[in-house]
């Protein structure tokens, strides 16, 4: 511990604390803007400056470490005036459109003005060059950017993608992809982690609400909505509920109130994914153990941000990806075939909306692969934040809503589906089914949980040994499958570099594009600094949903069994392949260059690596 004096108070703080952290321990809060705990500290805004005795200049308290005997003043007149002028400077280069900005009432710059007691501004002048870049997932509006660089840190340090960075100099500095190219043209994974950390309206999801309102108001459309598992663990936060409170029932009621004709659950799609992906894994294992051709490790494909990253960064490893579509596009395909048939509606008259914790899914639904019979599987994606906005706009008193239910026949799910929203969940759900199919016994472990892969660690691994298997799987007797689970693209790169080098020891790998999985997705409510453990709370919420259900293995879902009996036939069968599986596109770092110049070479290299198909 070190001892210092802050505003005349003696403060003890752990060694290595910053002045801001030490002050917090003493109950002194220092205003700040660019600093974002858990993401970055880069001292660019200078709002948190303080006076340190013996130092000539004011110092950024978010960076400078507290030292023994230091005497600090956090709110002298000199400091207070400096903060006001810096805020004035920021505002002098910021649009005054707060009342019609998507971050109205949740903008950190706006809130800071309140904290600093700003009542007037004095500094005016020219505005920095402006660029608005609308990609399918993310909209960048540089005029609202305050260059705090949180997005740069999220993209480089957290995700390891590095699609955006500072361009130009001085007053002309903008955060943008290289050569100011649009996001859509570069190797951005569309994960949206930048939109979660942005303090202002500079980085947001690309609006999906307009088309949904239009569909809801169109009497000729059958508007079907589905909701991803992670949404229910976080939507309440948008209505000032505590993180970790699940709002499944209220959400179902709100969706009905919004006017959706059918309220389905992406969880159903998750159960379906397990049937398909589990079967695919068993097929690959069967081939590999019987001397056939099989690409292992197999890697999950639920996360479209991860898929896009893989296509850019590991184009030669695409055969490792499961061919399964993501759960919501699977469900979209089922809605526009099986369900459309059942209710006698032309799929062309259906409008499927997915509410997702994800921005990449906005891009995913526009991929040419995601359509069947000329119809896109899903027509619009809303983020958790956008759904909350629609609920508020409709005047729905969300917190006091009665619990409702999802609609049949695509609204019932098992506990295995709930945990799809958190890192390790897809793997555990798949193993619950695969292990039981192979051995006839439930997955061993604590309450069906494979404990080594539960939690928020960056890379988690486990070994599963198949013993006393059913006769038809005798080739698996005594076989140990090594599995790995990771989340966040930077961590995925660690496992993928092994795959690329041919040294990966794993049979099956789960990757979720966002750190900690969908609970922390790019479309989720923005992080709140006062609840640092929000990810853990959202994780617990999903495991509680799982444990609260009677059926917790996907293959036990009676509505899934009915779907195969009535319509699909068998998992990975002909119709499944048509509706529920997909292909991938090698992109390289420069998509267009790859498409133009490397296609021919690509086919040759792939034939050499994986054999002629």
């Amino acid at each position: 511990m070190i001892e210092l004096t802050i505003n005349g108070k003696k403060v003890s703080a752990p060694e290595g604390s910053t002045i801001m952290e030490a002050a917090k321990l003493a109950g002194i809060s220092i205003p700040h803007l660019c600093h974002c705990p858990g993401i970055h500290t880069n001292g660019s805004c200078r709002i948190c400056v303080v006076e340190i005795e013996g130092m000539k200049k004011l110092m950024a308290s978010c960076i400078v470490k507290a030292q023994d005997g230091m005497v600090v003043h956090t709110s002298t007149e000199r400091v207070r005036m400096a903060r006001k002028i810096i805020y004035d400077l920021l505002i002098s280069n910021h649009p005054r459109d707060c009342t019609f900005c998507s971050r109205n009432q949740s903008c950190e710059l706006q809130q800071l003005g309140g904290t600093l007691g700003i009542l007037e501004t004095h500094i005016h002048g020219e505005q920095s060059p402006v660029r608005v870049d609308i990609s399918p997932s993310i909209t960048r509006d540089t005029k609202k950017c305050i260059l705090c660089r949180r997005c740069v840190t999220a993209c480089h340090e957290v995700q390891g993608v590095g699609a955006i960075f500072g361009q130009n100099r001085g007053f002309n500095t903008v955060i943008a992809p290289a050569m100011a190219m649009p996001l859509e043209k570069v190797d951005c994974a569309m994960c949206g982690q930048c939109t979660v950390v942005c303090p202002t309206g500079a980085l947001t999801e690309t609006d999906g609400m307009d088309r949904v309102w239009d569909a809801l108001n169109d009497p000729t459309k059958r508007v079907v909505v589905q909701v991803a598992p992670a949404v229910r663990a976080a939507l309440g936060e948008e209505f000032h509920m505590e993180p970790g409170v699940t709002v499944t029932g209220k959400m179902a009621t709100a969706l009905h109130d919004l006017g959706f004709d059918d309220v389905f659950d992406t969880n159903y799609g998750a159960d379906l994914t397990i049937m398909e992906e589990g079967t695919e894994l068993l097929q690959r294992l069967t081939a590999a153990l019987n001397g056939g051709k099989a690409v292992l490790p197999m890697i999950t494909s639920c996360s479209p941000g991860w898929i896009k990253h893989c296509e850019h960064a590991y184009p030669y490893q695409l055969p490792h990806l499961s061919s399964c579509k993501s759960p919501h596009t699977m469900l979209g395909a089922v809605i526009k075939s099986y369900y459309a048939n059942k209710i006698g509606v032309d799929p062309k008259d259906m409008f499927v909306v997915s509410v997702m914790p994800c921005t990449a899914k906005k891009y995913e639904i526009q991929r040419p692969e995601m359509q069947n019979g000329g119809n896109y599987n899903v027509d619009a994606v809303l983020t958790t934040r956008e759904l909350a906005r629609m609920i508020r706009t409709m005047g729905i008193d969300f917190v006091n809503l009665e619990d409702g239910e999802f609609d049949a026949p695509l609204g019932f799910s098992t506990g295995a589906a709930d945990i799809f929203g958190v890192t390790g969940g897809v793997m555990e759900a798949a193993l619950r089914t695969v292990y039981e199919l192979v051995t006839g016994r439930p997955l061993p472990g604590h309450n069906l949980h494979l404990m080594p892969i539960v939690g928020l660690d960056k890379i988690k691994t486990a070994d599963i040994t198949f013993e006393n298997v059913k006769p038809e799987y005798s080739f698996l007797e005594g076989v140990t499958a090594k599995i790995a689970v990771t989340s966040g693209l930077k961590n995925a790169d660690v496992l993928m570099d092994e795959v690329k080098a041919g040294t990966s020891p794993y049979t099956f790998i789960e990757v979720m594009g966002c750190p900690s999985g969908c609970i922390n997705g790019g479309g989720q409510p923005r992080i709140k600094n006062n609840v640092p453990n929000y990810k853990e709370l959202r994780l617990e919420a999903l495991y509680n949903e799982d444990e609260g259900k009677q059926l917790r293995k996907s293959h036990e879902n009676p509505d899934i069994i009915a779907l195969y009996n009535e319509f699909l036939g068998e998992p990975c069968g002909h119709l499944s392949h048509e509706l529920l599986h997909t292909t991938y596109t090698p992109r390289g770092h420069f998509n267009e260059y790859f498409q133009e110049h490397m296609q021919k070479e690509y086919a040759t290299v792939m034939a050499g690596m994986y054999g002629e198909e």
Partner: protein
Amino acid sequence: MGLLGQNILGSDFSFELEIRIGAGAFVCGEETALINSIEGKRGEPRQKPPFPFQSGLWGCPTIINNVETLANICAIINRGAEWFSSFGVGRSKGTKVFALAGDIVNSGIIEIPMGISMREIIYDIGGGMKDGKRFKSVQSGGPSGGCLTEEHLDVSVDYESLAAAGAIIGSGGLIAMDENTCMVDTARYFMEFIQDESCGHCVPCRIGTKRMLEMLQRMTNGEGDVEDIDNLQTLANTVSDTAMCALGQTAPNPVLTTLKYFRDEYVAHVRDKRCPAHVCAALKEYSIEAEKCKGCGMCAKACPAGAISGEKAQPHVIDKTACIKCGSCKNVCRFDAVYLT
């Protein structure tokens, strides 16, 4: 010679020297920005502490020196530290190289022992001001150095004395300015350079230098208000106090020193809408002195804006609203009747 590389001079000491060429950004003279640049990152400074000697290039302890410092090592090794220390004064030992420029007779690169006076540099080495004009100011330390006055001519040129006067040794730039220099315009000129070279990382430097430039532009364009002087002073102090690196912290030096030593010129620009040195085009006013004017008509012929009128052999007048302040009339007048205010 075997002075570099493996087993130098047959010893077991090996030393590799690698030269990296930067792209030439001004801010990369800031040591942590230089480190970022060498690492292949954008040339932006890092917050200090940690200082480079604690954690520098690729996180390793790093010593950064200017070329001049390294060049001195050779002389120190050959002639000894005592010899080197025999030059200089106080804590500023040895010699210093300056780039002497401006309205001066002899300009060029000079090396002086630390501690000689500014007067010796400007008059003995520089040969004094060109065309016998009066000395007005000297700016020391590059674009972010301070502007000193005639009163400072006997200040000893060393780190401590210059800093006390509000200037720096900095990059070793010395620009001498004569009586025809407008100090507000000089501050504007340096701010234009600095704001263009700001890396854009921190708010005070990125936006603050731009806003200071805009204020100075308003003043030199005759659009300034009296409050602008105080606003500029406050902003300059804040930028200096809060910017992340030395570039931003020193950027306001030309403004702060001219405000301190030449405040009357700022007042003339904003209150009287007058540029005492007759440099700022927007504030110049050409008039014809009736008593001197012979009515020859040369000026009216030369005026590209047709702003001058008058009967032959009668005093001419300039229409101030039509005048474009090009100075042609003054140039052609043989009777010195055209004057500037």
